[in-house]
């Protein structure tokens, strides 16, 4: 097992009080696996990722309870020194905005080299050679020249490629991509996503891809975790989620994927309302206020995790034996259009 999270709870201490950004997240990840973490803004996706990197904003952010195991080693109590050995070496990270996540006063080559010098004991020259290879790998043209350029001389898409090169430079076991395409143009989004997918297959790196958009996921992930209000509300493989989704929030996300084959009848419809403020999360199901199937119990009790199959689990009261049976409102042609629409950004 490469990564294993058990009932992870993360909070931030702010002036108003405790913000419970992550409220009990469990999942695990094998070598070479690609999983997607999907959900609206403010659901705790980035915070989950930051916890895995040991990068929670200090001193406000803290792991309240639960465990993070990296290659079987408990990491939640790691010292800063120990995290340095994980970051960049075992786990690489790609951030959302390529415009701001590269150092403006350092050449691209130097920024890729840094990690190599740090983790692989290379000297500057060796590291630069490797950086060149990495840039070729992420399909940047004119590498000889580009490597000595500064970020502002790169386009957005190229910068994100450079970010990918940085994340992959030390051959990490896992790459966390936090909304790697959200800030890019639609056409560029597709290119960057394809590149990420190809590289993943070539290098057999495990990937956690974080996104707002279920459409993005279909092309790359094997498993999907839908996150809402600080918890994972539904998890399963692609088929489980796309064709047999059971959670009303997942249905909502599916409906809001912009699709080319949409008919008038099932037009794109974003979910009404906003996610709960994790400053004072509701006692019951976090989705209750926005859910068309909400029941009394949803308001008061957190829904238990229901295992639909070996791979598929859902946290929703509808799956309780006592609950009325409801059918998925999704039109049967399901996710056929998902791949085509990977460029969209709506939720």
């Amino acid at each position: 097992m490469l990564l294993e999270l058990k009932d992870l709870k993360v909070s931030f201490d702010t002036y108003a009080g405790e913000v419970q950004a992550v409220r009990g997240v469990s999942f695990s990840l094998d070598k070479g696996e690609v999983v997607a973490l999907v959900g609206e803004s403010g659901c705790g996706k980035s915070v989950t990722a930051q916890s895995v990197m040991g990068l929670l904003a200090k001193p406000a952010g803290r792991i309240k309870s639960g465990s993070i195991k990296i290659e079987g080693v408990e990491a939640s109590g790691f010292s800063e020194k120990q995290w340095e050995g994980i970051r960049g070496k075992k786990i690489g990270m790609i951030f959302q905005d390529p415009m701001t996540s590269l150092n403006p006063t350092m050449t691209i080559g130097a920024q890729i080299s840094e990690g190599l010098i740090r983790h692989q004991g290379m000297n500057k020259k060796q590291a630069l050679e490797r950086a060149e290879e990495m840039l070729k790998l992420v399909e940047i043209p004119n590498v000889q020249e580009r490597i000595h350029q500064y970020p502002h001389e790169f386009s957005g898409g190229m910068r994100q490629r450079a970010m990918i090169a940085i994340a992959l430079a030390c051959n990490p076991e896992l790459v966390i991509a936090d909304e790697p395409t959200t800030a890019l143009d639609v056409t560029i989004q597709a290119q960057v996503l394809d590149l990420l997918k190809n590289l993943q297959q070539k290098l057999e790196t495990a990937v956690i891809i974080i996104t707002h958009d279920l459409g993005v996921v279909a092309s790359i992930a094997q498993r999907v975790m839908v996150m809402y209000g600080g918890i994972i509300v539904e998890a399963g493989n692609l088929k489980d989620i796309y064709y047999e989704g059971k959670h009303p929030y997942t249905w909502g996300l599916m409906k809001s994927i912009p699709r080319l084959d949409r008919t008038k009848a099932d037009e794109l419809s974003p979910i009404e309302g906003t996610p709960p403020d994790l400053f004072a999360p509701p006692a019951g199901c976090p989705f209750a206020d926005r859910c068309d199937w909400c029941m009394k119990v949803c308001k008061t009790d957190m829904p238990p995790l229901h295992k639909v199959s070996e791979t598929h689990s859902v946290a929703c009261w509808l799956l309780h034996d006592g609950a009325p049976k409801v059918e998925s409102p999704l039109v049967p042609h399901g996710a056929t259009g998902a791949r085509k629409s990977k460029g969209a950004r709506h939720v």
Partner: protein
Amino acid sequence: MSLFSYIMRRVLISLLTVFVVVSITFFLMNLMPGDPFIGNKAVPKAIKDNLYAKYGLDKPLFERYLMYLGNLAKGDLGMSMTYKNQKVINVIKQAFPVSADLGIRSLIFGVIGGLLLGVIAALHHNGPWDTTATLLAIIGVSIPGFLIGTLVQYIFGFLFSNVIKDVFNTTYQLIPIARWEGFRYTLLPSFALGFSSLALTSRMMRTSMLDVLHQDYIKTAKSKGLTPLQVTWRHTIRNAILPVITVLGPMTAAIMTGTFVIEKIFAIPGLGKFFVQSVQMYDYTMILGLTLFFSTFLIFMNLVVDIAYGFIDPRIRLAKGKA
């Protein structure tokens, strides 16, 4: 904007500014009520006319303006009206090196000290170091130059030397409090003059550091597993220092005006002392000449700083075509 057009633009603005300053200075001086020859005494008209003719004060204003511009182009700033047979340019040649020496020492002390303090404060944000540095910086900004000058003079010249007199029975001054005759003499004035620059630099650097620390690329740097020292040095300080470079211009101005006071307190024969004297004696040509010199010098320093900034920041240095 390319680097070339960036520089050209700065040079043009600077030249234009110098011209504006020259003109303003000239016309303002001609409105002056005081008169260098009259003072309180009644001077016979013939003598007065004579003097006016000698200094060209009888000609029409515009003609004098053109004359003045012509002379300026030749580097001639005229004669002092109160010091017999002293050319203004010679006064500058003789006194400016002293001021420049003092200024450079203060600047080095202020900038290096300030950068250090600012970095330490930002890295210990909200900790005791931060409080100390912030307090020191605030005191530095709040304490007038004449107060700090007089204060150090009092401490070293009276309290400290009294102790030395009592203990070692000598009047030897290890750190002298006046005149300008060697390294020991430069210590107190440089400290007094540089203190506010230190305060300003440390404030700027602290703010800039805190700003950079919140940038995404710092997260990237951390995600590479770099050590805190590497993150701080290669990513934080290198970026945070850039905006601080731009205050070097205004800071030079502050140091220069500071010399007016500090040179007076420490009896240093620099240009600031001459300036204050000439103001008090209504020495037209001297004020005019020194003002022009100071302005041009500062405008030039600003230009140098701006251009240096353009070369240091790759975003400006390597910019191609229009932004």
